[in-house]
């Protein structure tokens, strides 16, 4: 019985809807089922179209061709026809095939071609080649499909060096555009490097016969990425491949991922898969480049084969048991990893120092046969690890190669927890383990500045080793390094320094950006924590390397200037010398003097200074003192879209005997140039006089902002012992317009004076610290401080 196209479409639509609505995790079986359903439907459409009578084949390419159709996938279809059929006939058949697909609401990528045309297009457009790699006859004359496949693959192999180069350029552009799957918080499962597109590209490389690509070994990773994509399509209800944060929890649940944080486990799995694919792609492309570049213009298989055979005479020694062969580091014939535990690190270091990669077979053999590392590690092993990291950028491919073979988790068991662990903070660019390696590599630049570069590199490698576990990552890290460093063979003194680096790795940036450097307690506290000059230098270098490895949002000239200042002051404190006159203060004092001079009896003075080169602007405001003045000015600055980085507050007596508040603000424009000082002055004057209602202007502006998505609740803490002169209040919250204005308004409402403020913005999170005193300039009583804390909390979280 012949089925009409409409009947077939209705049956398909029902069966498809039923399949997609089935509860439970998606998987390969469902993809096959969806592909089979789709094939049946296309078969019926083909029969109804009369295509069989003109001699044609309906060919599935892309996802449908591979049999892994996702719920939101396009149908990539090619109608191949005999060349001697008239255009009118072909068009009529094609209409009967394509229109039902469009009418069913599915996305269609279609083409109609004679075999010669398909071959010609494949020669012009690499995407056509990639599509035809997976070409599969759904229905019709399979001989047509085979002939096209064979001719296209023949051309592909014949011109492999040039065409692979073209493909590689495309991959590089895609990396620049879509980032790396392994390290993104919101990766694109298809486009990011290490994603589904790269698996297709690897198949194209393998099909060129230039070199093998480990396509089969990547199958489990491919399945995982496809499962995640299926779940994402179902959860999001649209054909997206970008795993956005808002969807991650639902996707993880759809995939039945267990554990306390399923979305964390989802990201970790995606990252692991992306990393394996990216590593395979790296290695494969590296090989392609070696084999095709050197085979010269003539290229072709003969040259490739000559290269692959290689000869003994090519081998040059690199280190004990390690030789260079054909541009890669390989093991020497006499090398015995089963008796030489350090060989694995020595080979890695030698390869990285020479700017080479470790050949995959060398990695396999080292990973499989290496004798277990004795504990404590011999000095040569430590030296080799330091030398590997000290090679800088060149260490990354070597590190990744050994990581794929799971070498690091065996040498350093604690590594397995940070491996591919996602960083739940948009400031970070990399997963935890890669961040650690990046930090070590960044710290190479500071090696000359410190007395013990080896401890700097190892400290950098271990500073965040406590992440990915419950509890505070610094506390975890201390415990880990206390047992790990002795196992690595470090002397007790060196172990203490490494532990101190882990314990204090956030000390300098946090203190510099959140504490008043003029308060003697601040510098004394840092000096007590670091104890020696050497540790201070190591921490200084580690801090810069850590920030550089984190991402552009973690570092600024402003932060650097503060940290440098703190280090100088701490150095004096440790040496027992008096504190130098800090240039920042002198500058501020000059401003104060000028401001006071400018003051008319009731007037408001506003000065604005731009520091060339750092984009930091200083705004000095002098006005009659009253409670809430800080909040008013903060509001005006926010209205002018100036982001506050810090504020220093003083009260002085003007020549006429009245009390004047002088505020020195460090600000950066949110974008563009700072506003003209006249406009700022006018607005501050009006706001102080009460004719500009800052609060309502800000409220009106807030309305224009979309309400933030779910954010963590704000935190307000009192920091005991941070200062002897004032009560220190620390506010952590999700950044929002005029946040500082709201907080300071709340503090003013509690009738408390702010003497200094430090404001730090880290990505979307802010950490504001306020130094508070009562009306008489004394530290707040405990009860008073607690009240202020609650008031501020209330202002932040109106719900």
């Amino acid at each position, binding site marked *: 019985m012949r089925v009409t196209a409409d009947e077939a479409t209705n049956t398909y639509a029902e069966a498809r809807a039923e399949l997609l609505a089935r509860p439970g995790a998606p998987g390969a079986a469902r993809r096959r089922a969806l592909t089979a359903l789709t094939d049946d439907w296309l078969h019926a459409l083909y029969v109804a179209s009369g295509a069989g009578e003109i001699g044609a084949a309906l060919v599935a390419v892309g996802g449908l061709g591979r049999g892994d159709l996702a719920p939101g996938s396009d149908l990539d279809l090619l*109608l191949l026809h005999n060349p001697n059929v008239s255009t009118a006939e*072909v068009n009529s058949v094609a209409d009967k095939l394509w229109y039902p697909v469009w009418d069913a609401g599915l*996305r269609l990528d279609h*083409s109609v071609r004679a075999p010669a045309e398909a071959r010609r297009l494949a020669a012009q457009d690499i995407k056509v080649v990639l599509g035809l790699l997976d070409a599969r006859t759904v229905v019709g004359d399979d001989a047509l499909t085979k002939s096209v496949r064979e001719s296209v693959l023949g051309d592909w192999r014949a011109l492999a060096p040039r065409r692979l180069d073209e493909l590689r350029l495309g991959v590089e552009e895609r990396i620049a555009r879509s980032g790396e799957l392994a390290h993104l918080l919101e990766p694109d499962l298809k486009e990011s490097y290490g994603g589904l597109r790269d698996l297709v590209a690897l198949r194209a490389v393998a099909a060129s016969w230039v070199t093998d690509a480990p396509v089969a070994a990547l199958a489990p990773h491919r399945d995982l990425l496809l499962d995640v994509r299926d779940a994402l399509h179902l959860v999001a209800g649209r054909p997206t491949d970008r795993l956005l944060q808002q969807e991650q929890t639902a996707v993880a649940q759809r995939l039945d991922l267990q554990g306390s944080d399923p979305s964390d486990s989802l990201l970790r799995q995606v990252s692991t898969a992306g990393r394996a694919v990216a590593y395979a792609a790296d290695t494969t492309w590296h090989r392609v480049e070696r084999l095709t570049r050197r085979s010269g213009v003539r290229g072709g298989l003969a040259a490739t084969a000559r290269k692959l055979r290689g000869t003994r005479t090519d081998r040059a020694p690199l280190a004990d048991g390690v030789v260079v062969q054909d541009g890669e580091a390989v093991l020497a014939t006499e090398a015995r990893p089963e008796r030489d535990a350090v060989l694995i690190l020595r080979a890695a270091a030698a390869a990285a120092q020479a700017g080479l990669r470790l050949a995959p077979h060398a990695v396999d053999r080292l990973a499989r046969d290496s004798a277990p590392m004795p504990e404590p590690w011999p000095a040569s092993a430590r030296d080799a690890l330091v030398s590997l990291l000290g090679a800088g950028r060149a260490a990354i491919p070597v590190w990744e190669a050994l990581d794929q073979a799971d070498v690091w988790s065996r040498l350093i068991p604690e590594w397995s927890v940070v491996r591919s662990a996602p960083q739940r903070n948009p400031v970070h660019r990399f997963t935890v383990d890669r961040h650690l390696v990046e930090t070590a590599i960044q710290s190479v630049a500071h090696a000359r500045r410190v007395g013990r570069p080896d401890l700097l590199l190892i400290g950098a490698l271990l500073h965040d080793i406590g992440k990915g576990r419950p509890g505070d990552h610094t506390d975890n890290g201390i415990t880990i390094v206390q047992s790990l460093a002795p196992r690595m063979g470090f002397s007790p003194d060196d172990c203490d320094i490494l532990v101190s680096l882990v314990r204090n790795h956030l000390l300098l940036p946090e203190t510099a950006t959140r504490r008043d450097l003029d308060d003697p307690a601040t510098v004394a506290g840092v000096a007590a924590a670091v104890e020696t000059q050497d540790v201070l230098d190591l921490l200084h270098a580690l801090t810069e390397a850590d920030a550089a490895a984190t991402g552009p949002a973690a570092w600024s000239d402003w932060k650097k200037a503060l940290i440098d200042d703190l280090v100088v002051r701490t150095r004096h404190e440790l040496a027992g010398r008096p504190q130098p006159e800090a240039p920042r203060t002198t500058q501020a004092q000059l401003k104060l003097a000028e401001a006071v001079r400018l003051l008319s009896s009731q007037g408001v003075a506003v000065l604005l200074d731009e520091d060339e080169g750092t984009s930091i602007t200083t705004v000095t405001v002098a006005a009659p003192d009253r409670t809430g003045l800080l909040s008013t000015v903060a509001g005006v600055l926010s209205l002018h879209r100036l982001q506050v980085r810090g504020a220093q507050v003083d009260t002085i007596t003007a020549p006429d005997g009245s009390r004047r508040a002088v505020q020195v603000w460090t600000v950066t424009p949110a974008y563009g140039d700072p506003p003209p000082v006249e406009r700022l002055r006018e607005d501050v004057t009006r706001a102080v006089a009460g004719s500009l209602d800052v609060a309502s202007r800000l409220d009106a502006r807030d309305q224009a902002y979309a309400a933030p998505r779910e954010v963590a609740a704000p935190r307000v803490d009192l920091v005991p012992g941070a200062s002897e002169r004032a009560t220190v209040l620390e506010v952590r919250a999700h950044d929002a317009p005029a946040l500082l204005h709201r907080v300071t308004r709340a503090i003013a409402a509690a009738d408390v004076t702010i003497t200094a403020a430090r404001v730090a913005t880290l990505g979307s999170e802010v950490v504001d610290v306020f130094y508070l005193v009562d009306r008489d300039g004394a530290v707040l009583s405990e009860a008073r401080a607690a009240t202020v804390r609650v008031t501020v909390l209330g202002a932040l979280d109106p719900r």
Partner: protein
Amino acid sequence: MKLVTAIIKPFKLDDVKSALEAYGIHGMTVSEASGYGRQRGHTEVYRGAEYTVDLVPKVRLEVLVEDHDADSVVEVIVKSAQTGRIGDGKVWSVPVDTVARVRTGERGPDAL
């Protein structure tokens, strides 16, 4: 009042114009546009290459009409722009608060 906007195939513009004139609409704004919908950017329906999504040239036509005319005008455009092929376009209408004729300052339906 309503603003009727139509995205149509460029070669259908003359047909649509005559159909609208026959209906009694004498003013319209026509501009060149490009985009894609379910047609997915294949200019020649059967010669597209896989994965490429290009923008296809279209004509955008805008007509201001009184409320009671809107449905009929949409109908007239749909009928006259139809080829039955993929990529024929879309027509929609949205309410309009105010219209003023610049030369005279007339407001509302008088300004149409």
